């Protein structure tokens, strides 16, 4: 295929993926009436003041609950991904670097966890959490977010390939404890994989919707996805929410974009590292 044709195809797909985001940006700068009345993909004359007015409304509506939702999402996704990554890394590392009975069995069970959709587990989790009175608490969303079977898989594969057993033996001879070796030596070697796991977990938790929908009642605990969904379901009653949902959706993807761009450096260099040795 010629270079021109390749560029054309890429251009078409880029357009395809960016158009909805462009629409979101444009619509965020319109008033409720203008969204339906003006050209959907271009700005109106007073776009900039309207955008800031919408933004202001978003953060003040209903006592500023949207800010609270953003903070909740940041907590669930940020801390959840961080702790989840540590757990997945330790688990994958152990499976890769230690030999013990049942190792493959454990790995296979974890791996089969990748196949079970999170939505299928939400209801059983709800019933269990009801028994221990954890529903409608922060923990109901936070604890299940820590689990990442795919992260374990990735950590194992990467640890097996990038952490030389000789290095671990050398560390042992020098008197380093297993935990210390893991945290000071191995995690550094595994860094690109850890960044990937973190990113995947962050995105998955940020976008998670069904689990919070089932677990949470108190809107002060909602993540931003559930909050926007609740607003969206009330549009026929309170039509001015339409604008807030659109602006809110735009604001809610900004942290994802920021995280991606911020971690991209580690991520892209990591996955390609050593491929042409």
């Amino acid at each position: 295929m010629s270079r021109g044709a390749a560029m054309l195809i890429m251009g078409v797909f880029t357009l395809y993926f960016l158009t909805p985001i462009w629409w979101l940006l444009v619509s965020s700068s319109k008033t409720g009436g203008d969204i339906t009345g003006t050209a959907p993909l271009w700005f109106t004359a007073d776009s900039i003041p309207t955008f800031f007015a919408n933004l202001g409304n978003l953060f003040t509506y209903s006592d500023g609950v949207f800010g609270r939702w953003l903070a909740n999402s940041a907590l669930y996704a940020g801390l959840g991904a961080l702790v989840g990554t540590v757990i997945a890394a330790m688990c994958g590392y152990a499976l890769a670097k230690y030999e013990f009975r049942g190792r493959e069995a454990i790995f296979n069970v974890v791996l089969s966890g990748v196949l079970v959709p999170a939505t299928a587990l939400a209801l059983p989790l709800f019933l269990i959490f009801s028994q221990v009175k954890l529903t409608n608490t922060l923990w109901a969303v936070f604890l299940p977010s820590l689990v990442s079977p795919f992260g374990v898989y990735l950590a194992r594969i990467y640890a097996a390939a990038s952490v030389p057993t000789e290095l671990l033996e050398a560390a042992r001879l020098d008197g380093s404890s297993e935990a210390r070796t893991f945290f000071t030596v191995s995690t550094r070697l595994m860094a690109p994989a850890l960044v990937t796991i973190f990113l995947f977990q962050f995105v998955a938790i940020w976008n998670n919707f069904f689990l919070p929908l089932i677990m949470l009642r108190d809107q002060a605990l909602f993540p931003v996805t559930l909050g926007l969904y609740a607003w969206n379901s009330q549009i026929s009653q309170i039509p001015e929410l339409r604008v807030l949902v659109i602006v809110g959706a735009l604001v809610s993807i900004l942290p994802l974009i920021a995280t991606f761009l911020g971690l991209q450096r580690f991520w892209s260099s990591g996955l390609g590292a050593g491929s042409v040795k």
Partner: protein
Amino acid sequence: MRVRYGKATAAFAIVSALSLAGCSSGESTSATQDTNSCKPSSGPVELSFTTWVPGMDKVVDLWNKDHPDIKVKVQTGPNGNSGTYQNFFNQLQAGNAPDLGQIEYDALPNFRVQDGLENLAACEGVADAKDKFVDWTWGQVTFGEDKSVYAIPQDSGPMAMFYRADLFKEAGIKVPTTWDEYAAAAEQIKARGSYITNFPRGDVNWFAGNVWQAGGQWFSNANDKWEVNLTGKESEKVANYWQKLLDKGQVSTLPSFSDEWNASFNKGQQWTWVSAVWGASTLASGAPDTAGKWAVAPMPQWEAGGKAAGNWGGSSTAVLKGSKHPYEASKFALWLNTDPEALALANKLGGLYPAAKSAKDLGAFSGGVDYFGGQKIYEVFAEASSNVNPDFTWGPTMTKTYTDVSDGFGKATGGNGTLLDALKNGQQKTIEALKSQSIPVKE
């Protein structure tokens, strides 16, 4: 039961959680059946109340200020069918449902059949409250049974016709009072390049409101058996009527409440909207450019001089099974839905049109509305509300019925099959759904 292997602990936890959940809901069922009384609790209580009406927390603040002993905590979530009902069922199963929940009338039979509601008939003041509510709404919460009140009516959606007074006048077309005139007007309006209205293919409950007006009944429940009748002669009449308008292309088929839909109202492409009382605010915000040009008239009638009205929407405040304080919960529910201050605030913040008869005395509903050229539109809706057939019953699997029928409506508006076919299919699927849930059906 003893578990020998550590590995099995997780599985055991799941199984025991499920069986405990089963036990606890079973116990609460028998307990309430035995006593069938409703006594005050000793000491202060705290009630939880799940609702999705915006601003309800502010209304509840009013109550909490005056009732330190019965504190109500508001929880929220998405619209009923968007997830809150499913949550209620999950919580009922787990034995931790909120004390009170907002439930729309068309979903109440589902909760009743699944034994998810407390009977409040024995609670002080509940049975006597009957006269405070519009007759048909009381029928919705009692299911026509003796000594049973399963919820307190909250709001209602009496239907009338919003119409573009200016356009009708300019064109010299008479504002229709019967469905025949409506069809004739549709033809004239089509000739001018606009539509008389939009057929809402996804809102089967709107269609049901029309069948309700025509005197039809989709469900009835006699001798503990459900009878399903989506294809009775009234339903057939309504379906064929709209089918004709669709066939002639005299109504549009935009998805309701979508941007295009709002735009077509805003640009004057829609001349009428037969809708519920809450539609007033939908119009005002979706079609701001047409302010002052709208008016409200009663629904077109099947027989000239008739007064029948349908209903679209409305909800109740129910006390969910397993609540430890049904006495206090029913006190709160009665206050919430009859206290003038509470009703006024719920209307202002949440746009609710109360089911209480006293609604017409509230300031919010007595004056003229600018968007409708200063017309006192709520008088029309109050009149409509008193003309709604009080005996209409919803079925226990409405969500499923809505989905099945709206699938068929979608096909019909795309020129594939008819509205009546959709109802026939819905009829069959509904019967299957009832059977699969072991709900007795009369065939």
